[in-house]
C-alpha cells in the first residue's frame, strides 16, 4: 500500500487510503483510535498539537517528591509521542528493563480503560517498535557511556531516538557538568530530553517558582513541571516555561496516575 502520509504528522484522514482511493478498514480503525487518543490527551496542556513543548537539544523536567508520580507522568509523555510514531528512548538508572516495561503496560492499560478502548493489543503492537529502554546502574552511568550505546544503535540502523527520557539521574550541585554534556549530545543527535527530578521536603512547589535546590541549574531547562499532592489530588503546575491559560486545570489522578483535565 502506498500510504500518502503517516498518521500523526499531518492530515490523518488519508493515512489509510491508497492512490487508487481504496480504503483499508483495519488501518482506518487504527488511525481513528490513535487520533482519538491524541485529541483526548490532556498532555496537550503542555503545548498545542503542532508544537511540542521542547525542541531538539532542549531540556524539560518533572519535579516532585519521591512516589508522587514522576515516572508515570513521563511514561504518559512517552506514550503520547509513541502514538505519533516518534521514537522514544527511555533511560532508567533505577529500575530494570522489565519494570520499566511494566510501567508502560500499566499506564497504557489505564488509558485504555479510561477511554473504554477495545482491541488495544494491536495498537500496542504498533507502538512497541518505537520504544527502546536502556537501563544503567546509577553509579556506573556516564554521558560517554550513553553516547557509546547510542552510537551502537544508530550506526547499525537499529534505533534513532526522537525523544529521550532520563529517569533517576541524581540532580545536585555536581550535576552541571553531566547535564552540559547531555545538552551537547542532545543537540548533536537532535532530540529533546525529559528528566525526572526528585525534590526534597524543603522544596515547597509553587506555580511559576523554581525550587531553590535546582535554581542554579534552571537555565539549562526550558520547561519545569511540578507535581504536588494536595488533599488527595496531585496538582500539575508549570514552574518554568510557557504556560497555557488553562494549565492549572490539569491534575494527576492518584488512583491511575493518569493526567486528567479537571471537570
Amino acid at each position: 500500500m502506498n500510504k500518502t502520509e503517516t498518521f500523526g504528522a499531518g492530515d490523518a484522514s488519508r493515512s489509510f487510503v491508497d492512490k487508487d482511493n481504496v480504503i483499508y478498514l483495519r488501518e482506518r480503525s487504527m488511525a481513528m483510535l490513535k487520533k482519538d487518543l491524541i485529541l483526548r490527551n490532556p498532555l496537550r496542556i503542555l503545548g498545542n498539537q503542532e508544537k511540542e513543548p521542547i525542541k531538539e537539544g532542549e531540556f524539560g523536567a518533572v519535579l516532585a517528591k519521591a512516589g508522587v508520580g514522576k515516572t508515570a507522568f513521563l511514561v504518559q509523555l512517552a506514550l503520547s509521542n509513541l502514538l505519533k510514531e516518534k521514537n522514544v528512548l527511555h533511560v532508567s538508572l533505577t529500575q530494570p528493563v522489565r519494570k520499566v516495561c511494566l510501567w508502560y503496560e500499566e499506564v497504557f492499560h489505564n488509558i485504555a480503560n479510561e477511554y473504554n478502548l477495545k482491541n488495544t493489543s494491536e495498537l500496542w503492537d504498533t507502538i512497541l517498535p518505537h520504544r527502546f529502554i536502556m537501563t544503567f546502574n546509577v553509579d556506573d552511568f556516564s554521558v560517554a557511556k550513553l553516547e557509546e550505546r547510542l552510537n551502537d544503535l544508530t550506526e547499525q540502523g537499529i534505533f534513532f531516538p526522537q525523544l529521550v527520557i532520563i529517569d533517576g539521574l541524581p540532580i545536585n550541585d555536581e550535576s552541571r557538568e553531566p547535564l552540559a554534556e547531555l545538552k551537547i549530545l542532545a543537540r548533536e543527535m537532535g532530540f529533546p530530553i525529559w528528566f525526572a527530578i526528585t525534590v526534597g521536603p524543603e522544596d515547597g512547589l509553587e506555580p511559576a517558582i523554581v525550587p531553590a535546590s535546582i535554581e542554579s541549574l534552571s537555565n539549562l531547562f526550558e520547561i519545569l513541571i511540578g507535581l504536588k499532592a494536595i488533599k488527595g489530588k496531585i496538582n500539575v503546575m508549570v514552574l518554568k516555561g510557557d504556560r497555557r491559560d488553562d494549565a492549572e486545570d490539569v491534575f494527576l489522578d492518584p488512583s491511575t496516575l493518569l493526567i486528567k483535565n479537571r471537570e
Partner: protein
Amino acid sequence: MKRDPQKVRNIGISAHIDAGKTTLTERILYYTDRIHAIHDVKGKDGVGATMDFMELEKERGITITSAATYCEWNDHEINIIDTPGHVDFTIEVERALRVLDGGVLVLCSVGGVQSQSITVDRQMARYKVPCIAFVNKCDRSGANPFRVVEQLRDKLHHNAVAMQIPIGLENDFQGVVDLVTMKAVYFDGPQGEKLRIEDIPSELIEEAEKRREELIDAASMFSEELMEAALEGEIPEQLLIDAIRIGTLKRELTPVFMGSAYKNKGVQPLLDAVTWYLPHPGEVENIALDLDNDEKEVVLSPDPEKPLVSLAFKLEEGRYGQLTYIRVYQGTLRKGDFIVNSRTGKKVKVGRVVRMHANQMEDIEEIPAGYIGALFGIDCASGDTFTAPGIRYSMTSMHVPDPVISLAIVPEDNKSQQNMSKALSRFAKEDPTFRIRVDHETGDTIISGMGELHLEVYIERMKREYNAIVHTGAPQVAYRETITQKADFNYTHKKQTGGAGQYGRVAGYMEPCEGEFEFVNKIVGGAIPTEFISSVEKGFKSALEKGQLLGFPVTGIRVVINDGQAHSVDSSDTAFQAAARGAFKEGFKKAKPAILEPIMKVAVETPSEFQGAVMGTLNQRRGMILGAQDEGDACVIEAEVPLSEMFGYSTDLRSITQGKAQFTMEFSCYRQVPKAIAEELIKKAQEKKKKAA
C-alpha cells in the same frame, strides 16, 4: 521407612543453567552418605555427576531429566528433585515444583540473578513454593554475594536477607560466618567434610554485627517475641530461627546462604537450613478436585490413614519397564494395593514400590503421605492422579504450554522405524509438551516441542537409548492464520444430479476476535433447521484446521450465521458441513487473511563490549529490542524475535562473542508476519503443494 512426616522435606533445586545445581546436589548426596565419591558435571574422570545419569547430560554438561533422589540429614528425610536449568525444558521444572514443598534457588555469585532465575522464580510463585537461596561459586573471580542479595531484592522483589557472610572471596574463599550463631565455620578435610567452628575473625566482627542486625530486623516482623527480645538485647538462637522460618513459609522472607559447592564449602549449613526453614508436607496446603462433585476443591490432609490420593509426576522407561515417580498427598500407597487412575477409571494393582536414588533404587513396602517414591509396571501418563477405590479426586491440572516448533522425522530403515515408534510413544507419555502427529499429505511423522534444543535432545535420545536412527527435515515453525477484517459469506452447496442429492445454503459474516474461535447463531425463523446448526458449526470447525494461505490452523475468528436455506429432502448433516466449509473459504478470502508467527522472548547476557554486536545480530533476525540493561561489566539485552529467525542462533552468538555470551528464550505471543515475508511463505507453500501433487 521412618514415619515422622514432620521430618520430611521434599525440595527442588532450581536455577539458571550452569549456576551449579547438579554439583550442589552431588555434594549433598556425598555429605548425606548416599554416594561415596564425588564426580563433577564436566568431570575429567569420565564418570559424571550422579544426578546427571543420562549419557547425553554428561556429554553436554546439562541436566535434562529431573531425577528424584532421597537422602537423610540430621534425622530428617530429604527428597531432592534435580531440575533442568534450560528454558526449553521448563515443563520439567514446572512439574517438579508441583510436587515439592520447598525450593532452593541456586544463584551464581558472579552472574547473579539471570534471566532463567526470573523464570524459575515466577514458577515458584505460581505454585507458592517457599524457598531459600544459595549463592554458589563464591570462589570464582568477580564473586560478590551481597550484590546477588541486592538483585534478589530488586529484580525478584524478594525480601532477601543474608544468613551468612563470606570469609574471604574468590581465590581466598575459606568459609562463612553464621549470623545466627555468630560463629565462623570452616570446611576442612579433602572433601570439606569436617566442620571447624571458631570465633569470628576480628576484621569481620563489625560487618557480621551489622548484617546480623539487618537479619534480626527482617525476622522480627514475623515474631513479636523476637521483637521484644531484640529490644532487651538478648536473642535466643531458636527464637530467631523460628521467626525466620515463619517468614520463609509465608514466602515473605528469603534467607540467603553462601558457599562454593565445587570447593566443598557451605553445603552442610545449607542442609541444616533445609531442615530448619523449609516446610514439611503437613505445612503445605494441597488441593484436589472432586470429580464426583462438580470439580469442587478439596483440601487434602497428609494423614497416612485416610484414603489414598497421589500424583504421577514423572515417567521413565528403564531397563525393567516403565518407572512412575509418584508423590503421595494423602493416605498410604502400599505394595499389593489396588489403586484407581482417576483419568481413565482403570483399577491397577501396585507391584514393586521403590525409592529412587538417581539411577539406583531400593525396594520399599509403602509410600506414606508426604513422601515421594516410584512404582513399576503402572501404565499411565504423566500428570495422572491415582486414588484409593471409592473416591474420584484429581490433582489440580498442570499448566502445559503449546508447542511452538515442529520437525519432520524419517527413520533410516525398518528396524529404526519400529524403535522410533516405541521411543516416541514413551516420550509423549513422559512429556506433555512433546507432541507427535502424522502429516496426512506427506506421510511424514512430525514431532513438536518447545524449542530447537528440546527436539534435538529427543532425537539424540532416540538414537542412544532406542537405537533408532532418524533423519530430520528443517525445523518448521508452528504458524497460524487469522483474518483481519469483517467479511460476508453466502454459499450454497448444491449437488442434485443423480443419486441422493445434497443441498444447503449458509450465509452470515466472519470477523476477527480475541479468542480462538467463536460461533454465533443469529438465525431467526428457521432458515436453517435447528438440527443442522451443529452440522454448520462442525463444518466451520473442520475448515479452521487448515487455513487457505499455508495450511496452518486458523485462530482469532468469530463466525456469525444469520441466514440460510434448506431442502426438505436433500439437506443433510453432510450437506450443511460442506456448505459451511464452502462459506468459510468464500469469507476467508475476502477477510484480508494474515499469517501469525510465534514470537520468542529472548534474553542475551553478554560482556558489555559485545553489546553492540549482539544487538546487531538480533536486529538482523527481525528482532525488536525491548531494552538493554547495563550491569557494570555485563549487560542483558531483552528482545522479541520471531522463532523462525532463531534457528542456529547459539552458534552465531558464540562466534561473535568468543563464547562469552549466553541466551535464553521462551514463547511470548503470536504476531502477524510482515507482508513481504508472508508472500514468500505463501509462494513456498504453493510450490510444495505443486510438488506433492
